[in-house]
């Protein structure tokens, strides 16, 4: 029951992130300086007179004097508009409000940017890093591992020796070192590509070892020898017998690596070594929490942390379903 819920949440998250433009009320860059560090806007159904409204609404936020926070101006209510287009904008939104009111469902950050919108747009970077990075690392590792395992001898020895060297350095350190080789500030366009490339280059070793072991055992199957007996080439055997046989294990490994790589991007961005302002990423959003004042008073800025945990839980659930037992360290 819980596992199904987790998977559903995971799927919903991916969809929301994919269609961030639709689900997010605002742009990730839009600043509302006068509403800096605003808490989540409360949504009401019952107004101050006690009447029930069918459409939920919000009140306008008014900054309290001397930076003491915000209070609602109950003189006028602004109903939520579903499936509307912004006035002057051309994109369809799931929900929004018009006029001087704002819908900050998850509050705002230091620059008055809507956290929910940044969460969804930032999710693109973080989730895509995880998915692409894991995919590249596993693909690279599979290619190397399959060739090493199948053709053996010096190819195998050298590939595995190289893999062991890579695995002798704790992966976060390796990631940081490779990142350190690149210039400290890279513009947001190329940083994503570079980040994914780095993740792929750093993460190939463990999948390679796994695939190599698999290929070694699959190679001995009778049907492979039989195919050799009627003249099949090595390439054919890999393509039609060995890799499809290894497929299920490789796929479950992906489920293990996607959240790890997503976390790698988040960690790098948190340190200021990944995606940098103003582009959103779950990592650099969490970096705001390092200031004591923010940590203490702005609990809504923990939103990325919650989303990260949900992603982790969801992918671990997928992994547990198809590969029960202790994972490879």
């Amino acid at each position, binding site marked *: 029951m819980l596992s199904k819920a987790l998977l559903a949440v995971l799927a919903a998250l991916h969809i929301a992130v994919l269609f961030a433009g639709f689900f997010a009320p605002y742009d990730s860059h839009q600043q509302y300086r006068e509403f800096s560090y605003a808490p989540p806007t409360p949504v009401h159904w019952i107004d101050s007179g006690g009447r029930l409204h069918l459409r939920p609404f919000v009140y306008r936020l008014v900054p309290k004097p001397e930076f003491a926070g915000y209070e609602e101006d109950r003189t006028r209510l602004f109903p939520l508009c579903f499936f509307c287009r912004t006035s002057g904008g051309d994109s369809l939104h799931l929900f929004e409000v018009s006029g001087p009111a704002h819908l900050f469902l998850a509050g705002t950050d230091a620059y008055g940017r809507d956290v929910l919108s940044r969460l969804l747009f930032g999710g693109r970077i973080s989730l895509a890093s995880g998915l692409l990075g894991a995919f590249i690392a596993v693909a690279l590792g599979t290619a190397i591992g399959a060739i090493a395992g199948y053709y053996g001898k010096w190819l195998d020895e050298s590939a595995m020796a190289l893999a062991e060297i890579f695995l002798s*350095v704790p992966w976060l350190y390796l990631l*940081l070192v490779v990142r350190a*080789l690149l210039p*400290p500030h890279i513009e947001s366009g190329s940083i994503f590509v570079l980040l994914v490339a780095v993740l792929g280059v750093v993460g190939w070793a463990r999948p390679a070892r796994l695939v190599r072991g698999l290929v070694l055992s699959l190679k001995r199957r009778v049907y492979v020898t039989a195919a050799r007996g009627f003249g099949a080439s090595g390439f054919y055997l890999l393509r039609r017998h060995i890799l499809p046989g290894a497929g299920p294990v490789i796929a479950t490994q992906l489920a293990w690596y996607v959240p790890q790589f997503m976390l790698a991007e988040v960690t790098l961005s948190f340190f200021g070594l990944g995606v940098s302002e103003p582009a959103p990423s779950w990592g650099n959003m*969490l970096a705001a929490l390092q200031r004591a004042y923010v*940590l203490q008073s702005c609990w809504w800025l923990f939103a990325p942390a919650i989303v990260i945990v949900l992603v982790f839980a969801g992918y671990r659930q997928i992994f547990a379903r198809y590969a029960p037992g202790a994972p490879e360290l």
Partner: protein
Amino acid sequence: MPFLLRRLLRSLALLIGVSFLSFLLLDLAPGDYFDTMLLNPQISPATVAAIRSQYGLNRPLPQEYWSWIRSIGRGDWGYSLAYNLPAAPLIWQRARYTLLLSGTATALAWIAALALGIWSSARPHSWIAALVRTLEALLMAIPELVLALSLLLIAVWSGIAPAAGASSSISALQPRSLLDLARHLLLPCLSLALGLLPLLLLHVRSSMRQALDSPFVNAARAYGIRPARLLFRHALPVAANPLISLFGLSIGLLMSSSLVTETVFSWPGIGSLMVTAILDRDFFVVVDCTLLAAIFLLAGNFLADLLLFLQDPRVRAS
């Protein structure tokens, strides 16, 4: 004996490989870092030239590598540009703090994992077992970063323990007293321990379960051996096998597992040094930290092999 010898040689070969990789990285660093050094008005060009030639950076690659290795062996690990100090003493100082933090956390995590894991394997249907399983699943889903931030929040809200640094005195590395140090240690240690716990718990439970389900344990049960004796004298030694390798690996990770926690809690260890060094382009320090972490990991792996050798007669026979 040859088994151990082979393992040792292999670890050494890997160490050489890692050192070469690090050296290569130093060499590949874009822009000569010594140019940045030249920009610092406190360092004279003569010093820069001297350091340059001392590290043999104007000679062919194999010679450079060899002179770098020799200087490492001498205890000279390079120069920190950001701190304007030789790197080695800086790193050793921070390494002590890292070991303190991760050592305590690892010990705590192991004790908890063993206690909870063994108990829940012995009584798989009790509420303790269910609790342990829930705890494991929950902690598995929470990455170290989130854990650290959450505990930091708790620290700031409740004021139970200080939230940053290793001491309340001005110099982070000179604690006022042991008590002060301990108070600062509390939260990061808890954070790291909770982060390490779930994987350990998973492995303890899984190997205990395998041991308890094995045919010879079932046979022993059929003789009517008391459950406690069964658990400790029969199942545990078998379950210990994979756990011993895991323990060796834990030792290997002592230098590296605390990186994120250190950064969040501003604990003055190797991890936080690494991060600031990257931001400062302090390249010697970056490579040195990585090398130190790798050395520990390799040592840990070898330790795991050694322990396995001592414990498992099957390995001794091969």
